[in-house]
């Protein structure tokens, strides 16, 4: 019994300690921003490997999610004779929820895990330590460009996902199932609000971008520097990101859409 409490206490303390480290770490990362702004190339390279290389995955997923929404939405709405509102349903689901959330999950699987593994391996092979000995701060030189590239890429990727999803819904709804094209777009336009839906969705994806990239770079930097440690860190990076995204999605949704 006592051992159980001890274990609980230990877990609590070490979790708090880790949270503390993660917060100090991110403060350190943010101090690297001015340096990045003077060396934009470092950022560009990372936007390429974090953002550009994720575009294909996000686009294809967006297309299929949009098509499924079109199909499912049509089945439900046509029972009520409301298939005119298919565009609204597809766009609202994508812009408010699926765009930010699914993109964040895909992003964490594709880019976040790669970041964790890359940084963890750099630590395990003493590259980070080596940089420190060359009087170069690895947090500013290695971590900061990756972090900001992730924060920048996520909203762009989520917007792409939503746009392509709407296209997919349009293709299935209007193209295949014969929903009236004018009604599809007009209803969508009149019911989707720019500030309430599009901007809030954008804010969500920006928040998720920060969370997912933060977890990814921190897990890599905090990894036990062995091959086993790096592989565990990579798994943790994806799992924690998924929990964090879904949890924060609830909080943000309650704040943004729950009030009125």
């Amino acid at each position, binding site marked *: 019994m006592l051992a159980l409490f001890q274990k609980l206490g230990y877990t609590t303390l070490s979790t708090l300690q880790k949270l503390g480290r993660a917060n100090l770490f991110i403060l350190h990362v943010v101090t690297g921003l001015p340096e990045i702004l003077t060396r934009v190339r470092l950022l560009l390279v990372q936007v390429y490997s974090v953002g550009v290389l994720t575009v294909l995955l996000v686009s294809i997923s967006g297309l299929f999610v949009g098509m499924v929404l079109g199909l499912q939405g049509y089945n439900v709405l046509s029972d009520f004779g409301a298939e005119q509102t298919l565009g609204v349903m597809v766009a609202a689901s994508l812009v408010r929820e699926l765009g930010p959330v699914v993109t964040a999950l895909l992003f964490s699987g594709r880019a976040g895990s790669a970041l964790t593994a890359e940084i963890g391996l750099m630590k395990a092979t003493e590259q980070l330590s080596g940089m420190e000995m060359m009087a170069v701060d690895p947090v500013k030189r290695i971590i900061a460009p990756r972090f900001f590239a992730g924060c920048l890429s996520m909203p762009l990727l989520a*917007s792409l996902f939503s746009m392509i999803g709407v296209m997919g819904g349009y293709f299935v709804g209007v193209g295949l199932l014969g929903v009236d094209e004018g009604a599809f777009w007009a209803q969508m336009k009149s019911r989707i609000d720019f500030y309430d839906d599009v901007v809030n969705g954008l804010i969500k994806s920006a928040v998720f971008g920060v969370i997912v990239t933060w977890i990814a770079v921190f897990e890599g930097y905090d990894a036990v520097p062995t091959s086993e440690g790096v592989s565990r860190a990579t798994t943790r990076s994806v799992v924690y990101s998924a929990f964090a995204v879904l949890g924060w999605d609830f909080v943000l949704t309650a704040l943004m859409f729950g009030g009125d």
Partner: protein
Amino acid sequence: MQSSKAIEIWVGLFVAAGLIALFFLAMQVSNLAELKSNGDSYRIVARFENIGSLRVRAPVSVAGVTVGRVSAISFDNQTYEAVVEMRIDPKYDTLPIDTSASILTAGLLGEQYIGLTPGGAEEHLTDGDEIELTQSAIVLEQVISRFLFNKAEGGDKGSGSNDGGTPTE
């Protein structure tokens, strides 16, 4: 690893694609284009005894076409009425002065909106005008309770209340 020029091009394309997507969401999917043209829209007001669950930004439509949006809702302390302010797209500037406004529901349980029915006058509504003829929202609970009340009375006296609108509580 790509050459540095190729990376720059790819990143440029990526950022452009993301911004285009955002622009698409703003202009094609949402109502931003409409919100923007609000600048030169004109304002009319209408008073209702009961607006039900009408909200700011609800559509204002004529013959099923959205011509504007509800821009503000307030309460008049003197007359105990709801004052609804609407902004109408300047394209639709030929609404007769005797147009009537009613609060309608999209579908059985859908969102409430304002439907305008044009009258026959020659003069047109302009900025700041008030619509005189209004019909309040139909509040489902009141309709049901009145129906039940009438049943209980046995219907011998006919309808006791006037039809003019729902009484305010």
